[in-house]
């Protein structure tokens, strides 16, 4: 009877498990296999040449374009982790208090993340670009008498990546804001009341109650930020138009280039695995770091 019950239950989840296995699990392991081969993505798989770990050796020791793209993505992620998440945290703190129009603010702050990245890139390109856009940023700078800061923001290699990072932060902070707000609202009010009764000031309340209890949420937001930002590429295509001689190159764009332009699918798979390893290691380090911070507090 129990066996029958178990069999019945598994029968109903079988289709979903099957689809998940075919379209996710098998391709996941297939990528590892393909990374050991040179394959042009056109001929039959049987025509692929086994090269062992040569693709990985090439990535580690010879592909400077790849590591440059990882560095660029790392910079965008750093801005996201610091500027974007700090802003989100402060706004979440403000909106968790009883301020006027906090409901309206919550809606406004959540609009950017629900917009498509292509749309965000095109709108900001129109705002910033002086070639095919309205050039609003430069016009404002000129009006304010700050002529020395006028730039071709999206085609200047010194500024293009930072512009991408800022626009990415603008788009992404809404998600972090929502998660922080939810985290703040789970902190029992009694803790704050007890602290106020004991005469604690705002900073002491934040340092001893809010921040320690929010560390799990901060870890979650940080890990999601790393995972999301390191894989971002659509914004660069719609905002800058391409890799700008490598100055706005990111890992996913490099993987796409390898697949499309050099027809090396095995190598592209190896790049993807490399990116995955980087993300796992970065997330693990971050997790350990915040755990230590929490223990210290």
């Amino acid at each position, binding site marked *: 009877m129990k066996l*029958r019950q178990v*069999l*019945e239950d598994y*029968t*109903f989840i079988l289709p979903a498990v099957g689809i998940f296995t075919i379209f996710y699990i098998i391709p996941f392991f297939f990528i590892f296999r393909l990374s050991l081969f040179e394959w*042009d*993505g*056109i*001929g*039959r798989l049987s*025509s692929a040449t086994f090269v062992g770990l040569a693709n990985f050796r090439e990535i580690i020791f*010879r592909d400077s*374009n790849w590591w440059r793209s990882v560095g660029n993505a790392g910079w965008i992620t750093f801005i996201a982790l610091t500027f974007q998440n700090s802003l989100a945290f402060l706004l979440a703190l403000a909106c968790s208090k009883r301020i006027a129009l906090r409901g309206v603010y919550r809606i406004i702050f959540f609009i950017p993340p629900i917009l498509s990245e292509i749309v965000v890139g095109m709108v900001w390109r129109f705002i910033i670009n*002086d*070639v*095919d856009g309205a050039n609003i940023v430069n016009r404002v700078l000129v009006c304010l008498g700050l002529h020395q800061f006028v730039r*071709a923001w*999206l*085609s*200047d*290699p010194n500024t*293009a990546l930072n512009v991408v990072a800022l626009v990415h932060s603008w788009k992404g902070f809404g998600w972090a804001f929502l998660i922080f707000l939810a985290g703040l609202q789970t902190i029992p009010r009694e803790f704050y009341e007890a602290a106020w009764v004991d005469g604690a000031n705002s900073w002491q309340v934040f340092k001893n109650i809010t921040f320690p209890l929010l560390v799990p949420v901060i870890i979650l937001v940080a890990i999601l930020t790393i995972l999301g930002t390191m894989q971002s590429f659509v914004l660069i295509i719609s905002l*800058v*138009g*391409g*890799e*700008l*001689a*490598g*100055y706005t190159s990111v890992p996913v764009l490099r993987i796409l*280039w390898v697949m*499309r*332009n*050099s*027809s090396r699918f095995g190598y592209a798979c190896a790049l993807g695995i490399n990116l995955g390893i980087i993300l796992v290691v970065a997330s693990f380090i971050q997790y350990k770091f915040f755990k230590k911070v929490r223990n210290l507090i």
Partner: protein
Amino acid sequence: MKSIRAWILLSGLFFLGCSPPEVREKRIVIWHWMTDRQPAFQELAERYQAQRGIQVDFQLYAPSEAYSQKVRAAAQGGNLPDIFGVLSEKRDFASLIKAGYILDLTPYMEEENFAWRNRFFPQALAVNKFSPDNTYGVNPGIYAVPIDMVAIAMVYNKNLLRKLGFNPSQPPQSFEEFLNLGRKIREEKLQGLVSGWGELWLIYCFAQNYAFNIMGKEKVLATIRGEVPYTDSAWIEVLRLFEEMKNSGIITNKVVSMVNKTAEQIFANEKAVFAFNGSWCVNVYKGMNPDLDYGVMLPPRISNRFPLLVWGGAGSSFMVNAHSPYREEAVKFLKWLTALEQQSYLVRKTNNLPAIKECREDLPQVLVDFSRLLEKSTHPNSWDVWELPLVNETLARGIQAIVLGKKTPQAVAQEAQRVKERELAKKSN
């Protein structure tokens, strides 16, 4: 009882999902990426059906990157349509042929005393042909049919040139004249030269035009074969041209972040004096600004020692799926599509250069000017050697860096040569 009902329900769903294979009526399916030609293609499909009783289905997949990926995925899955085109380099074309996906059209081209083959301009066929000593490892033959030709050259806005004090019927012929325009262009707050140099292939194409002019075609091919290094003074001279263009004001930083569509829009909106673009731009500019008054010219030459050659000849081509059950019908359709009446119709409707010699359709003057440049054209896909993709990328990105002021021509040449040597060593291992 409950479990029996559950099994019956699941089995029913399973068999409902497994419907019998669709029996396809005789219909030729063609995949393409040419958004501006879809209405013309559909009209031709209807005509063909009226004449021969065979349905033809032109399916458009755009943009071109998405189309390329679709073809590649279909090749892997064995789902290629009856007729399709290949947008990428000849290397990928060769891979599809070696994998057995593309029908050898040579026997059909040789029928009736080479009647079909002789219809085409030699440059148009050259891109689709593999010679006996080709380095791609493909059996010699003709594997695709060109439906148009293209030339990539410079266009100039006659009104703006007049505004700058030049006779629009005599655009700059020498590179020095061209650079001297830079100061005046800056004063008028115009863009000098625009092009989709954010797309690496276009910047590489422009560089090659001047490579031919400075060192001759043989030395360029020798470089690709690995016999001449990229650190050769001739190549550094080619790379230096971009530095000179930047310093003169003819080009700015912005050109290296432009996609070709943006460049086309800027030129059509009369904000740029020159554009580097292909003959497909005639139809594009007509759609964006029908009153645009512009002319066609060769990029201004820097040397009289060797001719300046532009990329040309290669247009869009269609090939037949070797595994298609309707491949004979597909070949017949392609013969019909490349006949005079259909080519004339395509020229009228889409403003592209015809692939066949006898097409005497009245071309707009701009297209006539483009067609004259075909005498001074060549194309990488018509050569039997090809440069390694990573070397092309290093050169093109290096040129972008020169325009951005981040690298010197010497540094780019050294980097390109380093990558070339590394890739050649890898190939020989």
